[in-house]
């Protein structure tokens, strides 16, 4: 009864808010994505201008391919990203295991610091890591460079890996591990044959997250990098100091597409694994 009388009234009232909501959503999306689309658009511009369109061209992509310093920065980023991701994924996975499967003194403190690390201001992390390296590594003869960047990236991505893997572990039936032990698997075999395959999607997700965080990190890297160890974000920043050219647009587009492909491909792979 009340639904019958209430229905049309509700619809009449709803029409204007519905449209307002649609408009609002469009504006939000425009705000989020329009600058990126503009950036991609002008990477195909035929003139040096990044404001007025003069015609289609791929010359900035060709310029990108010719610039050795950009190649060097890209390889630095890949080197740092892959190494830091591998180390952070291993440490983060075992940290997550310790925090979910074991009880130990100071567990709460360990837990809290892991979460706190994810919201730590990057500027603080960067400055403190620089001070730390100056006090410890440099006296040992290790200069600021790829090594220090890797250490710094491991330090700030480990927490993210831990959190992602932990979520996966929390959703896993603990009796599966007991069942493995019950069937004669020692702790190592249990981990390799049961735990790891089951948390693998979480481990992969954590690794992807760590890699993307490492690949586009600017602030922390800025503090701990040295001569000749510029990563891609640092390189882009230094290029902008000499004026914005469509090469930067082209480079940003490449990085953006690569990142999206990585995340999208990774998640597709995980979904397929889950379903099989």
């Amino acid at each position, binding site marked *: 009864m009340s639904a019958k009388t209430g229905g049309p009234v509700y619809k009449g009232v709803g029409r204007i808010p519905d449209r307002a909501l649609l408009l609002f959503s469009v504006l939000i999306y425009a705000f989020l994505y329009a600058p990126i689309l503009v950036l991609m658009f002008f990477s195909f511009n035929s003139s040096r201008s990044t404001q007025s369109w003069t015609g289609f061209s791929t010359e900035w992509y060709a310029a990108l391919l010719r610039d050795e310093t950009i190649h060097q920065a890209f390889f630095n980023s890949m080197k740092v990203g892959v190494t830091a991701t591998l180390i952070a994924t291993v440490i983060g996975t075992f940290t997550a295991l310790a925090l979910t499967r074991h009880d130990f003194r100071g567990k709460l403190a360990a837990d809290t610091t892991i979460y706190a690390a994810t919201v730590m201001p990057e500027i603080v992390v960067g400055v403190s890591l620089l001070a730390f390296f100056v006090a410890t590594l440099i006296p040992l003869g290790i200069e600021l460079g790829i090594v220090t960047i890797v250490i710094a990236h491991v330090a700030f991505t480990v927490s993210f890996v831990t959190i992602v893997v932990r979520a996966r572990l929390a959703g896993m039936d603990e009796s599966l591990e007991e*069942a493995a032990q*019950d069937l004669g698997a020692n702790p190592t075999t249990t981990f390799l044959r049961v735990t790891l395959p089951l948390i693998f999607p979480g481990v992969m997700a954590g690794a992807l997250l760590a890699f993307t965080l490492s690949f586009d990190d600017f602030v922390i890297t800025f503090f701990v990098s040295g001569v000749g160890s510029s990563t891609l974000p640092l390189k882009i920043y230094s290029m902008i100091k000499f004026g914005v050219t469509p090469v930067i647009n082209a480079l940003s587009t490449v990085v953006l597409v690569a990142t999206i492909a990585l995340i999208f491909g990774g998640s597709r792979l995980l979904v397929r694994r889950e379903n099989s």
Partner: protein
Amino acid sequence: MQERKTTEHSPTASGAGPDTGREVAVELTGVTKRFGEFVAVEDLSLDIYEGEFFSLLGPSGCGKTTTLRMIAGFDEPTEGNISVAGEQVRGVPPYRRPVNTVFQSYAIFPHLNVFDNVAFGLRRAGVQKDEIRQRVTDACEMVQLAGFEKRRPNMLSGGQQQRVALARALVNRPKVLLLDEPLGALDLKLRKELQLELRTLQHEVGITFVYVTHDQEEALTMSDRIAVMDSGVVRQVADPATLYEFPHDRFVAGFIGQTNMFSGRVEAVEGDRVTLRTSDGEKIEAKGQEAIEANSEAHVAVRPEKIRFGGDGDNVLSVTIEQVVYLGVSTQYIAVRPDGEKIVLYQQNSHDTAGPAEGERVSVAWDAANCLVLGG
């Protein structure tokens, strides 16, 4: 082998009391388990014999699952000792114990197919490939899952997953199979089917089964012997018939089947005949089970099916029928005594004569031999 046969086919011989002629498969001596302040199991001693279907029965939180987990090795006793097949297992990790478990949640490995699930234990034990194939095939056949070897667990029904869990455990030929409420998640019809199947299977393989359940009917249907547990303590260990006919105490009498309980003061003790006077002056003749003294407080119990209509018997009560529930094979009557206490009785529907109607005043009677004095 011969020994096994005799125990299997004489369930009456497996009643209470020490039976030195049989091998003990699991022995618990003075086992206590504490989790912080909480005492989950207290001073538990049990002998579970080889080839026996033994049930741990009790309400949730009574310590039955903890007991099972201590035998499996997932928890270590705070005090006391456990031995499996004559060997002390304290400090022995689960993966080195000669037992296998069927988990309440089945715990089927979701990333492995049925074959790999069942083969998991054999592979860990380093069994040859050909033998693994043979034994896994046999095990799948035994639990009626032949042809399902390549299936993924998420494509199996609850009952089928249960069978995989069973095959995965039995294929290792453990000394003892531990089952933690394995039928709890299944619907009633499937549960009844699997109860009988499990029982048959246990006879076939001759492996000792230790079965945890909170379902008294399930325990009565399947077990050779049952340990009734409450608050971490074993109240009684006996075969199903003894548990039902001669419960030790009020808890067991109330937990196994339905029962009518009377409380009062003991007036006289003559041999095993006890006379009890209830608070409202009713006199009840009962059979004493243990040393009982005159003038002490006591409780007696009588099963609903032992009470009949009529004024002929050791105990006669005048009651008013409050409710009649037709159950097919039998009819349940709920009657009220003059003091307001309720009494339940069952009558077989084997006669054409109709029983009393609701509101009718009738006499009910039962014999002292069917009325037990209870401890606790």
